[in-house]
């Protein structure tokens, strides 16, 4: 509870949380905020911005502004789900490697190092290119598989060091099970790292999804910021003067990333008192 209080007192965390709430409102109330259906194709194609279409229309005659509002749903969902799944995998692998020395640690550590070095986007591209279907869950799967290594690598030494602290030794002497020690003694003490890991992975998820969809490896008919950018580039939005079509989704991606990054920073400062202002 103490940590939560500290978190909300932090200015960076407050700004980050407000930004995230803003995106959540956009996603949840998209049907009420967007003026038109994002898939309706009845407007004049490639129209510049006007009062009827703030950001203009696509080559298929869809309203760009409505598409961007609806796109918040997939982009935010991918970020949060990737953050969650990646963190779970990182925690499992980091904890197993840190807690069980010897063969388990050696194997998992080698695996972590390998996945850390293999460049993420090319691996995602190769995976996605062979995939038979390309929905949101395919993209989430591909990003998660390539993105867990960093967290596991950060958690492992932390678990190793906590395992040798006196309060953990005390639990061992009392005869507590490994399960109890891991979940009740070690896990709470790594909460800050795990939270930071979640925010970091969420940024990674949002940016990777946008990149993959921009290349055309997503489902081009789904509505997300990545696909809006894909169509903007495909239909040469800039050269028709429809700069808002390209500017806004990219800016929103960067702002969503910034909101996760601000919270990440705040968590870092709370768990590492040295980073706080003196």
């Amino acid at each position, binding site marked *: 509870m103490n940590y939560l209080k500290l978190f909300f007192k932090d200015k960076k965390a407050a700004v980050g949380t407000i930004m995230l709430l803003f995106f959540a409102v956009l996603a949840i109330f998209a049907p009420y905020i967007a003026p038109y259906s994002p898939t309706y194709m009845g407007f004049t194609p490639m129209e510049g911005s006007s009062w009827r279409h703030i950001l203009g229309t696509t080559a298929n005659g869809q309203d760009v502004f409505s598409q961007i509002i609806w796109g918040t749903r997939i982009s935010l969902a991918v970020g949060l789900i990737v953050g969650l799944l990646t963190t779970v995998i990182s925690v499992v692998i980091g904890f197993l490697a840190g807690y069980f020395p010897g063969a388990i640690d050696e194997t998992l550590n080698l695996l972590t190092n390998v996945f850390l070095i293999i460049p993420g986007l090319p691996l995602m591209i190769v995976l996605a290119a062979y995939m038979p279907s390309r929905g949101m869950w395919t993209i989430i799967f591909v990003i998660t598989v390539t993105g867990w290594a960093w967290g596991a690598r950060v958690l492992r030494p932390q678990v190793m060091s906590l395992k040798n602290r006196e309060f953990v030794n005390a639990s061992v002497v009392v005869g507590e099970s490994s399960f109890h020690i891991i979940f009740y003694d070690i896990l709470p003490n790594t909460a800050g790292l795990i939270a930071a890991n979640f925010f970091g992975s969420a940024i990674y998820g949002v940016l990777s999804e946008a990149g993959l969809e921009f290349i055309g490896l997503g489902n081009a008919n789904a509505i997300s910021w990545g696909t809006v950018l894909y169509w903007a580039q495909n239909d040469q939005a800039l050269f028709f003067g429809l700069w808002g079509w390209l500017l806004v989704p*990219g800016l929103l991606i960067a702002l969503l990333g910034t909101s996760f990054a601000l919270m990440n920073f705040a968590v870092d400062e709370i768990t590492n008192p040295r980073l706080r202002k003196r």
Partner: protein
Amino acid sequence: MKYILRKILIFIVTLWVAMTINFILPRMMPGNPAEALIARAHGRVSAQALHSLEVAFGVNVHQNIFVQYIEYLERTITGNFGVSITYYPSTVMYEIEIHMPWTLALIGITTVLAFVFGTILGISTAWKRESLASTFSLPVSIFFNSVPYFWLALLFQYLLAFILGWFPISGAFSATGPQGIALIGSILYHAILPASTIFVTALGGWVLTMRNNMISVLSEDFVSFAYAGGLPDNVIEYNYVARNAILPNFTGFAMAIGFVVSGALLVEMVFSYPGIGYLLYQSVVNLDYPLMQALFFFITMTVLIANFIADMTYVFVDPRVRV
């Protein structure tokens, strides 16, 4: 030299994993991507090339999968990746050879520049933490760290090349075929926009990590001791704090270089810069699996080598691993 042996082991295992991913994915993925590839290649390539494709992807080959695997590894190690479907009759190796130098120069130079400038900026923002410049540089770095590379590339392309006409819109050199010095000038001129995009987006990450490392080291006892001993500020800043703070940057290099390479690939696509990223895009659009596989292998290899160099430099910077 346990440290170096360990790094070599990781190098070899990673390369093996990359090769194995290339082997397994087209064979095991649902929807038979390998058969679809052969079907697409029918009529586009010669009978001989088609047969070698079938061998490479295990279609219509009545051979034990382990024998296939061994033969596949042998072909990969000897650099035999077959013909490209997109650029037929060109071989995959030829295409990679002519595109690789562009990417190596572009990413190599920008990575080094971003590392050096980002580290210096990180040192000074942490050192003068209360100054105006440092208060501003923090949120700016955080923002730029979250900007999609390809989006910034598009904005630069629109504003600086299309609207203002200061730089060429795409390509790596002028189509008029300049010679000698003019050609070099044209190449540098075309490289400015893609390079600045990569530089600006990569810079933020180095600033942030270096700043945090610096602040952590600043509260160590030996720093207070140096102050107490009356050492000049700049000696403490660089020889005491920065020297220790830079160490985690070397170990974090693996992930950073992965990010830069990934981002640079997208930047190349935007600027139609004739490097590996552009080639990868072509292979994906055309579902040219032989080319895509080889590119994945070579990109991984490049990242591994860059990382290995960083690891070896680390041996010189941190005496503790030299045991």
